[in-house]
C-alpha cells in the first residue's frame, strides 16, 4: 500500500453524517429472573461525541450496551433509533465485547467473515482488510490463526473487525478490562483513531483513568440506575451525584441499600 493510503483513515470523516443517531432510550427497564437490573433509564445518545459509561461491577453497564445494540430487549420502555436510516439500524452498528470472540480462522478470515455478511464484494473486502490491518498494526499477523494471538492482539483484532464494518455507532464493553498497560495504550490509540474517523463510540469501563483519557461525555451508572449524565470535563471536575463523587475518589461503594436511591428521592425522604 502506498504512503498516501497510509494517511487516509479507513473511514472518511467528511462522508459521515448521522444515519441512525440519535439513539433514544425511554424509561427502559430490564428484568431477569425477577431482578430489576436496569431501572427506569432514559437517555439520548447523539452523533459525534465519545460516551463513556462509568460505574462499578454490576452497575448494568454491559446490559445497557446490549440493550442499545439490540442484543437484548428491554422488559419495559423503548429503545429507538431516530435517524434517517432507521429501517436497518443493525447495519450501522458494531460491538466489541469484553472477552474477544475469535472465530476459528486466521486474522484475515475473521475480518473478511463479517464484511462478507455485510454484503461487501471481494475486491472491496481485500482493500478494506489491508487498510484496517495497517491501521491496527496487525499486518504481520494477517495469516495467523486468531485464537493463537495474545489477548491484547485478539482484542485489537476484535476492534479492527468492528471498525472495518464502518459503523456509525460502535459499542465497546470494557474493551481493555483484560489487557496490560501496553496493550491498553495501543487499543486506546486505535479507539482515538476510530473516533477521529467519525464513528460514535459508546463504551463502558470501570477504569477512571481511561475514562478521563477518552471521554467527551460520561454516564454514571449505579445498581441499574443512571445517576448522572454530564460532559466529561464537568464530570471529572466535580460530579453532581454523591455516589459518583465517591466513585471518583476511589471509595468502595458498599453503602447500605437505603441510600442507594437517586439523590432526589433521598432529599425528599429527608424532608419528610
Amino acid at each position, binding site marked *: 500500500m502506498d504512503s498516501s493510503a497510509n494517511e487516509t483513515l479507513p473511514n472518511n470523516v467528511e462522508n459521515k453524517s448521522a444515519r441512525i443517531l440519535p439513539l433514544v432510550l425511554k424509561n427502559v427497564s430490564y428484568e431477569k429472573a425477577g431482578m430489576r437490573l436496569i431501572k427506569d433509564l432514559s437517555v439520548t445518545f447523539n452523533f459525534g461525541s465519545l460516551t463513556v459509561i462509568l460505574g462499578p461491577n454490576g452497575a448494568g453497564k454491559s446490559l445497557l450496551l446490549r440493550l442499545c*445494540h439490540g442484543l437484548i430487549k428491554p422488559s419495559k420502555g423503548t429503545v429507538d433509533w431516530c435517524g434517517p436510516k432507521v429501517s436497518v439500524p443493525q447495519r450501522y452498528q458494531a460491538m466489541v465485547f469484553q472477552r474477544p470472540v475469535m472465530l476459528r480462522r486466521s486474522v484475515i478470515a475473521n475480518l473478511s467473515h463479517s464484511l462478507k455478511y455485510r454484503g461487501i464484494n471481494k475486491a472491496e473486502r481485500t482493500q478494506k482488510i489491508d487498510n484496517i490491518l495497517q491501521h491496527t498494526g496487525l499486518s504481520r499477523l494477517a495469516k495467523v490463526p486468531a485464537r493463537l494471538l495474545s489477548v491484547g492482539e485478539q482484542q485489537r483484532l476484535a476492534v479492527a473487525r468492528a471498525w472495518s*464494518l464502518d459503523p456509525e455507532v460502535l459499542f465497546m464493553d470494557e474493551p481493555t478490562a483484560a489487557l496490560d498497560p501496553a496493550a491498553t495504550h495501543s487499543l486506546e490509540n486505535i479507539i482515538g483513531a476510530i473516533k477521529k474517523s467519525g464513528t460514535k463510540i459508546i463504551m463502558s469501563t470501570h477504569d477512571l483513568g481511561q475514562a478521563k483519557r477518552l471521554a467527551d461525555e460520561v454516564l454514571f451508572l449505579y445498581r441499574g440506575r443512571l445517576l448522572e449524565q454530564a460532559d466529561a470535563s464537568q464530570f471529572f471536575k466535580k460530579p453532581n451525584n454523591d455516589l459518583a463523587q465517591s466513585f471518583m475518589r476511589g471509595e468502595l461503594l458498599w453503602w447500605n441499600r437505603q441510600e442507594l436511591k437517586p439523590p432526589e428521592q433521598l432529599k425528599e425522604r429527608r424532608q419528610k
Partner: protein
Amino acid sequence: MEIGDAFAAAMALIINFESGLAEIVLLSLQVSIIAVAIACLIGLPIGAALAVFQFPGRTAIAVILNAMMGLPPVVVGLIVYLTLSRSGPLGTLGLLYTPTAMIIAQICLVTPIIAALTRQTTEDLWQEYAEHLRSIGIGPWRAVTTLLWDNRFSLITTILAGFGRASAEVGAVMIVGGNIDHVTRVMTTSIALETSKGDLALALGLGIILLALALSVNAAAFIINDAAMKRHG
C-alpha cells in the same frame, strides 16, 4: 491348534487379498461411506440448527436424538425391511436385498449419531459466537454455516464415529441385505455366516481387517483433531 491354523490362514488371506475377500471389503466400504455421506448431509445441518434455533420442543428433540444414538441395528433393520418389503409402503421400488437397502438402513442408524454429536459440539461454539454473530446481523441459517465451518475439526471426529457405527453393525444389513454372495455380502455379515459355518480363517481375516479399519479411522480422527487444535487454537 485349530485357532492357530485359522489365524495363519487368515493372515495368508489378507496378505494375498484374494478377490473374494476384496469384494466383500470393498462392498462394505462402499455401503458405509455412501451411508455416512448422506447421513452427514442430513445430520450436520439438523444438529447445528438444533443448537442455534430456539423453538418449543427443542429439548425434547435433543433428548430423542441422543436416545436414538443407541438404536438397536436389528430393530432399524426390521423397520427398513417392513418398509421395503413387497407389501410395505416402498415395496414397489424393489430395493430389498440390494446394497441400496443396506445404505438406507445404515443412514437410519448413523444420522441420529451425527445430528446429536453435531448439536453438542456446535452448541458450545454457538454459546461463544452468539453475541458476535448477532451483532454483525447474521441470521440463524448463516450462523449455522459459520458454526459448521468453524467446528469442522471436531465434526470430523463426529463423522468418523458415525462411520465406525456403520461399518461395524451387522443386524441391520443382515436383515435388509440378506448376506447374498457377490451382491450384499459385507464384512460383518460374512463374519457371522463364516463363524456359524466353521470357516474361521475367513471370519478371522475379515475380523482383523475390520479391527484395523476401526483403529486407523480413530487414529486419523485423533491426529486430525490434535493437529487442528495446535494449528487453530
